């Protein structure tokens, strides 16, 4: 009996060496991906859906990258304001962060697109600007909307990153005669980047998925095109499967990238 136990342990460890039982989900994902790829190759209805939706990838990536870059700028400024001793800056930034985070992103997008942007541009037009709100493309408004929404999250990421740096660092920098700005720029922020990069990476992936909200405003990204295709052809599985496949392929790749960053940035490496 003891012998059979040893044998079965040996067999199962050999089995385990080939296939980690905790990693089976990954195989399922790969199989899903392969099935969709095969379908696209051999099934004309999938091929049709893919051809129709594929151009949306470019728009999705464009929205993701530009919105995210803008949200980083907003987030850094708002994060700095949140740790500032200036009460005006602090209150403005806190108001922004707290209100934005309590409102669904879709509502914010509609708000920015149909209220804030028109008001802003109409104001500029009245001041003699050469274009009107009709000239501002929908995807431009969406970029600002998403950036504003994500800026509030990034502000908190930056704030937490800055606050994670030991107080003594700022004191040492200031006692050497550096101004607050110089201390932030040369001492605090370079250290905060380490803590901030992994959550920012996760937010980038979340942003990629949230660009699908732009479909509500008829911007030609993946989700919008898949819906159009559904309406065009009265198929449902094909466009949705293709859209999900495209998102998944991108997010899985990006997740691996973020994991890599996390490992490189962890302090014990």
């Amino acid at each position, binding site marked *: 009996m003891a012998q059979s136990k040893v044998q079965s342990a040996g067999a199962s460890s050999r089995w385990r060496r080939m296939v980690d039982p905790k990693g089976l989900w990954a195989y399922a994902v790969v199989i899903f991906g392969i099935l969709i790829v095969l379908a696209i190759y051999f099934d004309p209805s999938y091929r049709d859906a893919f051809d129709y939706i594929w151009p949306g990838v470019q728009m999705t990536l464009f929205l993701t990258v530009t919105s995210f870059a803008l949200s980083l700028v907003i987030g850094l400024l708002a994060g700095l304001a949140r740790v500032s001793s200036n009460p005006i800056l602090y209150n403005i930034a806190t108001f922004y962060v707290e209100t934005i985070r309590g409102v669904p992103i879709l509502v914010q997008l509609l708000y920015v697109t149909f209220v804030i942007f028109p008001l802003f541009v109409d104001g500029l037009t009245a001041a003699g600007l050469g274009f009107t709100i009709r000239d501002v493309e929908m995807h431009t408004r969406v970029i600002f909307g998403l950036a504003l929404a994500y800026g509030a999250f990034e502000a908190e990421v930056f704030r937490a990153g800055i606050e994670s740096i*030991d107080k003594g660092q700022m004191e040492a920098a*200031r*006692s*050497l005669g*550096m101004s607050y700005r110089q201390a932030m720029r040369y001492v605090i922020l370079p250290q905060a980047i380490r803590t901030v990069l992994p959550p920012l990476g996760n937010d980038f992936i979340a942003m990629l998925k949230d660009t699908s909200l732009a479909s509500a405003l008829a911007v030609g990204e993946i989700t919008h095109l898949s819906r159009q295709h559904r309406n065009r052809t009265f198929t449902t599985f094909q466009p949705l499967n293709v859209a999900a496949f495209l998102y998944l392929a991108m997010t899985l790749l990006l997740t691996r990238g973020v994991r890599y960053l996390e490992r490189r940035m962890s302090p014990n490496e």
Partner: protein
Amino acid sequence: MSEKIAPSDDIIILDNIYKAFGPVQAVRGVSLRVKRGEVVVIIGPSGSGKSTLLRCINHLEAIDSGDIWIDGIHLTHRQTDINKVREEIGMVFQLFNLFPNYTVLENIMLAQRVVRKRSKEEARRIAMENLQKVGIPEKAESYPAQLSGGQQQRVAIARALAMNPKIMLFDEPTSALDPEMIKEVLDVMLQLAKEGMTMVVVTHEMGFARAAADRIVFMDNGEKIEETTPEKLFSAPEHDRTRQFLSRILAH
């Protein structure tokens, strides 16, 4: 009140300083004068306000009331550029506070570059001179985490000295160090004192106080209880509280 007063021998003048943290009165009405080249040691029990007083001198803590003059410049005056004054005051902390993301050399060059606007070559030369002075030029390319506590503290001293300060403040520079490293840091400080640096040092190292201090200030409960010479302090302290404190720390 005017920004400048007539130049005098007193490079640091603290006049009736008060500082509270909420309900805690950390410093109560302390006055102190330090002459150029003097070494003043501050002692006292934990929580007596030694660090707070030291940090008021370079305005890391804003005082509630009182006046501070550094080298004739009125620190508490609104128009005083605090960064300019801080350039002249080096500070060494209990926990070193080196910048972990920079090498030793970069630690010492950074403020020279961005504050003093020195060229890279000059900053590097001065950094190496000061590393030489604290005895670890071979560590220039190391990161702080690769150094022992004593080496880190010596780098911190070199970093402060590279700014050519007129005053050096030390807040318990050896109390986070293993015993075998205390001496290497104290030796550097003794050398500085001998060269005529103006120093205000919070420490419990009575050996250092005896060897280097011109005066010793005893603080308790936010107040300056006694200010005297090392000889008098160790032979005949005036106040009971000083006596009690000394007997406690000299017991070990």
